[in-house]
């Protein structure tokens, strides 16, 4: 009888531990991948639109128009 209770207790512990492991893995990996992709996309966009910072921006022209003291 004691032996059966022991087996059931071990079974419950093993099952719960297994569930915890799966939950943690599923939460961590997608975040890491998404961040990685976002950084990659951000860098590619910044590299592509580098011409926007090369003095062609109209807002720079506006700034230049302010009278110098």
């Amino acid at each position, binding site marked *: 009888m004691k032996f059966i209770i022991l087996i059931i207790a071990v079974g419950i512990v093993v099952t719960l531990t297994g569930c915890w492991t799966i939950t943690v893995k599923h939460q961590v990996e997608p975040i890491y991948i998404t961040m990685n992709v976002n950084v990659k996309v*951000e860098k590619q966009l910044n590299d592509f639109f580098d011409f926007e910072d090369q003095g062609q921006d109209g807002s720079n022209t506006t700034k230049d128009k302010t009278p110098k003291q």
Partner: protein
Amino acid sequence: MKKLNIKTIVLYCVVTLFSMVTISSAQGTKEDIKIRMKDRFAKISELKQSGKIGETPLGFAEAVNKEFAQDEEISRLITAENNDRKLLYGIIAKESGTSVEEVGMGNAKRYFQKASDSDYFKTQAGEWKQKKDMMPQKP
């Protein structure tokens, strides 16, 4: 005679395929898109500053109201700009292993960060607002 016909058809197909690939690659490389967008940039910036066009949450340019949307020049510019953006987002999405929408939203975020306070942005609800009205109020 039969052989000649098959050869002609095959040759025709190869030439057609080759020209299609050449045309599509000439329009769709990152460098070509960049040249076209660079040429358009000053005009697009001017229209943004005058409050005629704004940015959508998916990273595309759009006329802020119907009156501006009906203007032929504005409409032509927006169409050309968005066609190039669509091509660009597709290329970046493929290279980064993500979706076109994701890249577009990333670019919308970039435009918002770089925009001046008076620039217009379309909210998720479809309403046009100036950047200054979308920023959290300082206490």
